[in-house]
């Protein structure tokens, strides 16, 4: 299913309007320093949203990612505390995230649980409990300074979390739009039975999608550990909701088959800019929740209107 270019521009236009309003409202908004700041703050949600996008394209959902962040951040920091080198620990954390994601996929495809909402709700609780047990309920600090310098530092003036997120976006974009795997995922989300009849290995592709979502959570945990300079077992609590919001604001469909990397990036940035702008304007966190809730509903509503116009034309 291809959407015309002018329809895809709606989220971008929204982001542009938001930035315009915020730069008029606060003199501190439109500075290079603050824009880099927002990008850095948005990087983690943007990475999580990427995994969520892959799953939502298949008409699925991954509720476990926030907890997977908690578990992988604890494993990552514990490994480093016990003398494992930072690159190896990071690789293992990515592996753990991928494995939990794969488990999500297998629960769905092997145990035939009726909906990923259920399988990932299960792993949400399991992973959070495991994180709290492993960490003994307390944050783990005392990470090697080099880890922090590299992952949370900057490269040619650009914050490393932003560089990492950008690479992840590039890779996922190529994966979704240029590989047979990506095309299969859209086909499965569009119509699972038709995809099966076309000879697409639906179960294997679904396993892959959830494994990728877990890997994204692992990557986000690495960035978060460096940014906060510690591993705390409650990290990422509720993060799945912001990630889902970014994907939906970015124009993906909950019914599967529709959604782009670019749209998701814009969705994550809209949330990031909104939070930052409201912080600069000293708007209370409670109002921020209301505003973000309204934005989600309005974004999807515009999408509905757009489709109605598209169908009429």
């Amino acid at each position, binding site marked *: 299913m291809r959407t015309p270019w002018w329809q895809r521009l709606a989220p971008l236009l929204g982001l542009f309007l938001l930035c315009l309003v915020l730069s008029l409202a606060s003199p*501190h908004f439109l500075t290079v320093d*603050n824009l880099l700041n927002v990008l850095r*703050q948005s990087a983690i949600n943007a990475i999580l949203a990427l995994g969520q996008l892959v799953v939502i394209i298949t008409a699925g959902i991954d509720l476990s990612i926030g907890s997977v962040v908690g578990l992988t951040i604890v494993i990552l920091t514990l490994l480093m505390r016990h003398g494992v080198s930072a690159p190896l620990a990071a690789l293992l954390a990515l592996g753990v995230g991928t494995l939990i994601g794969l488990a999500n996929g297998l629960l769905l495809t092997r145990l035939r649980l009726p909906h990923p909402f259920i399988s990932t709700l299960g792993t949400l609780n399991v992973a959070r409990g495991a994180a709290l047990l492993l960490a003994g309920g307390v*944050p783990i600090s005392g990470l090697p300074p080099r880890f922090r310098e590299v992952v*949370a530092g900057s490269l040619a003036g650009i914050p490393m979390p932003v560089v990492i997120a950008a690479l992840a976006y590039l890779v996922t974009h190529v994966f979704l739009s240029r590989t047979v795997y990506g095309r299969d995922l859209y086909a499965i989300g569009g119509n699972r039975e038709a995809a099966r009849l076309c000879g697409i290995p639906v179960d294997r592709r679904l396993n892959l999608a959830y494994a990728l979502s877990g890997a994204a959570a692992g990557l986000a945990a690495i960035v978060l550990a460096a940014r*906060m300079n510690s591993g*705390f077992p409650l990290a990422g609590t509720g993060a799945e909701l912001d990630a889902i919001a970014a994907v939906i604001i970015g124009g993906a469909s909950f019914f599967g088959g529709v959604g782009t990397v670019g749209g998701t990036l814009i969705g994550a940035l809209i949330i990031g800019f909104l939070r930052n702008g409201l*912080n600069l304007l*000293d708007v209370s966190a409670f109002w921020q929740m209301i505003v973000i809730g309204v934005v989600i509903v309005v974004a999807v509503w515009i999408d509905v209107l757009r489709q109605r116009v598209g169908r009429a034309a």
Partner: protein
Amino acid sequence: MKRERETGVRWAAALVAAGALLGCSGASRSEKAGPAASGAPPSAMEIALVTKAMDSEFWLVLADGAKAAAAARPGVKLSIVAPDREINIDQQVSILEDQTRKGVKALVVSPAGSAQILSALEQAHQRGVPVILVDTDAPFDKKVTYIGTNNRRGGQLAAKGLAEAIGGGPAEVALIHGVPGNESQDERAQGFIDALASDYPKLKLVARQPGNSERALGLTVMENILTAHPGIKGVFATNDQMALGAMEALEARSLRGRIKIIGFDATKEAVQATVDGRLAGSVAQNPFLMGQRGVEAALDTLDGKPVEKRIDTGTELVTAANAAKYLK
């Protein structure tokens, strides 16, 4: 045609409403500046108070103290910002980064996670923004001062209060604590545990569970403790929200008064519950003084005046005997 015009009108109305909202918030913001600030640039003397949350009386009173100190000094603008829940430490980090970039002259901060926000505090320091910590300390050696309760002493006071409420004889007690790693909550728990070990050997600690400073969790944790240890005689919850939640669990099982609960913060609701005999007591802190001294310390630092490295705002055990003065 008519339909189209109606849609247009609706859009225009929506835009006007949005503009009005923005306009109003703009007005309320400039209004906060004192009379002397009218000629000066708006950010001449802006100080930010960043608390862990704004979801309990404690933070509101602390903010009142800060407002009072800011109002006493013309030309000072105080911004008050907080995450939506105490557990959203990353949100507090973002708020600190944003406020620093906004160009505030000083930060008065209550760290939601003592270790996690260090890099954000470091950034503020590098940009020449002095950091004053209130309520909760953090291992940040460049802080101007830490203003708050001696939480360890508060925990000891809670042990004393619980021992007196239970009376003589051996008894099992439980501890409901906050988000682990939150220094002030950890200190209260540790002070309580130490005091039991050294001064009240007859009280045996049989359960310690986290309630994340939230009322709903205080209730469920208490239910679990009651199931596991039905013979329990007393509970110390490291804040009043959890104490009140635990109290609800007891009342649901008609155990009022049989199990003594001591809370922490002496919020109005907890003090009223103490007067009513539903709580045994609560350890009072002085959040108003924390907010007030926090902003005063920020202003003194900006004026180049020396500030003490540690300012104790005091604790007192509130029981039915002395509750009256806290109900004013």
